[in-house]
């Protein structure tokens, strides 16, 4: 199984499209950080204008943590797209290339094939988020240094001491891997259904956007549906920036994400197992 996963990872990283995500982050994050280095004080002042009427601020809130926190918020749309680029191609790409006939006539079970592809997709997701973390925090540290983190959540202003932040980010990025894992699983499911990677990419993104729109509209029916939409939990990483941390909610969100991943993978596996390979 390890061998199969290694093969899948090798194939993933031999394709140029895999590097789009890493390059995009390598360009976008520095651009954001450089821009914030120059103009970030204005943004911070704007965000804290009410508070600064009553308080004098001393110190540098414009640091790697603030910037990385802002960047993590791009998890709603930008990063999912980069995930689907690869996850959507994992199975459909074989159909397009005609290589299903090659690999599925090997003496290895379809379950192992589909599992190894799925795990490779999750590993890619992890590596992409890890890259995001390294570039955000690492470059941010070089440009802006560290400091305290001011976070606005639910009408509360929270300031985290310098030594109380990094572990929160590690857990937040960990949760981000989980929520992006759901995105990867959804794209993987669609990839099992079709013979072209474009379909899974567009469909997955469409679903995410539609779910986000439904969640944002303040209509009773939609608000009832909201807790059942996985996009409602994609932002749960920010719960690690609460005082105190609501462990119950985090565990609940984690289980929901894991449940989605398991369910979507299960369905994809079943479809793949039963599929007649006609390409």
């Amino acid at each position, binding site marked *: 199984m390890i*061998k*199969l996963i290694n093969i899948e990872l090798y*194939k993933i990283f031999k394709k140029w499209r895999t590097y789009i995500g890493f390059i995009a982050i390598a360009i976008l994050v520095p651009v954001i950080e450089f821009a914030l280095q120059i103009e970030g004080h204005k943004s911070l002042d704007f965000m804290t204008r009410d508070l600064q009427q009553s308080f004098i601020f001393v110190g540098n809130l414009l640091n790697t943590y603030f910037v990385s926190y802002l960047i993590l918020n791009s998890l709603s749309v930008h990063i999912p797209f980069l995930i689907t680029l690869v996850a959507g191609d994992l199975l459909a790409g074989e159909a397009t290339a005609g290589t299903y006939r*090659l690999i599925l006539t*090997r*003496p*290895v079970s379809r379950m192992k094939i589909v599992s190894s592809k799925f795990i490779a997709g999750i590993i890619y997701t992890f590596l992409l988020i890890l890259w995001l973390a390294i570039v955000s925090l690492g470059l941010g540290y070089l440009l802006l240094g560290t400091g305290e983190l001011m976070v606005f959540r639910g009408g509360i202003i929270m300031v985290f001491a310098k030594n109380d932040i990094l572990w929160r980010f590690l857990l937040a990025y960990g949760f981000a891997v989980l929520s992006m894992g759901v995105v990867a699983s959804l794209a993987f499911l669609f990839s099992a259904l079709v013979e072209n990677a474009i379909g899974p990419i567009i469909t997955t993104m469409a679903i995410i956007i539609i779910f986000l729109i439904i969640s944002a509209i303040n209509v009773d029916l939609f608000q009832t549906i909201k807790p059942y939409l996985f996009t409602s939990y994609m932002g749960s990483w920010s719960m690690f920036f609460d005082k105190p941390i609501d462990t119950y909610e985090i565990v609940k969100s984690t289980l929901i994400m894991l449940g989605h991943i398991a369910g979507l993978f299960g369905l994809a596996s079943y479809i793949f197992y039963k599929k*007649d*390979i*006609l390409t």
Partner: protein
Amino acid sequence: MDSEKVIEIENLSKQFKDLKAVNNLNLNVYKGDVFGFLGPNGAGKSTTIRMLVSLIAPTEGSIKVFGKTLKQHRTEILSNIGAIVERPDFYGYLSAFKNLEIMGKISGKEISKNRIMEVLELVGLEKRCKSKVKTFSHGMKQRLGLAQALLHDPELIILDEPTTGLDPQGMKEIRDLIIYLSKEKQKTIFLSSHVLYEVELIANRMIIIDKGSAKVEGNVEELLDSKNVRVTFEVDDLEKTKLLLNNTLWIDKLDTAVNGKLIFNLSHGEAPQLNKYLVQNDIMVGAMIPTRSLEEYFLNITQKVSG
């Protein structure tokens, strides 16, 4: 037949929505056979082959390979099958060598670098082993397809149109390779091909299918009765020739005379004798063309079905 059965297909059917692509097919392939699997386009050949290598699940019937049911012993059976299914496609962004290496690893067997080079040499691709497959011609991909089928030295080799896209030299090389694998290595070959004379040359048993069902199955020589050959003579004066032959035994062997052509059913060796007789009697013989007997047999069988 005393040889053990390598492939046993019983009452095999495959229904796709409105189309029954394979309909109650039965066939047997014995150890050491070079088995010709023939049929017109849309007969169900590819569907049958895909079921044989478990790319498609049958709707009804059973497939046994090496005496074991495919459904229950899939992995074990596939470890001893090498197959080209339709057009061989590879990971174009990887080299030929790398593609084979990956196929070897997926198979779970330790395929050494030497073995990979050995099969590449066998199909004439050793010099292009490092080239990316996307730079290969169709013929080269065909060869590479054959290489991946032979990689793990399987007992049963399933070849779906293995010579498509090859030049005559290439076709001969593949033919010779198949004969070598059959005779020297005692491999069982399941060969689907449109190149009928090839099948006639190398297959010992064959089946013709049409509309998903078997039309005829058996020993090639017996089916074709190839002691008799149909030969077409092109002559300058058809009437004169007919008149000449009327009072000879050759007239019994004449099948058709039209448009300056006379078609005879001749035994082996009679064609030059007839040619000599005609020339000696001042008949100008423009051409002497033997008709491929399998082609005719095939057309007869399949036209009977459709007609």
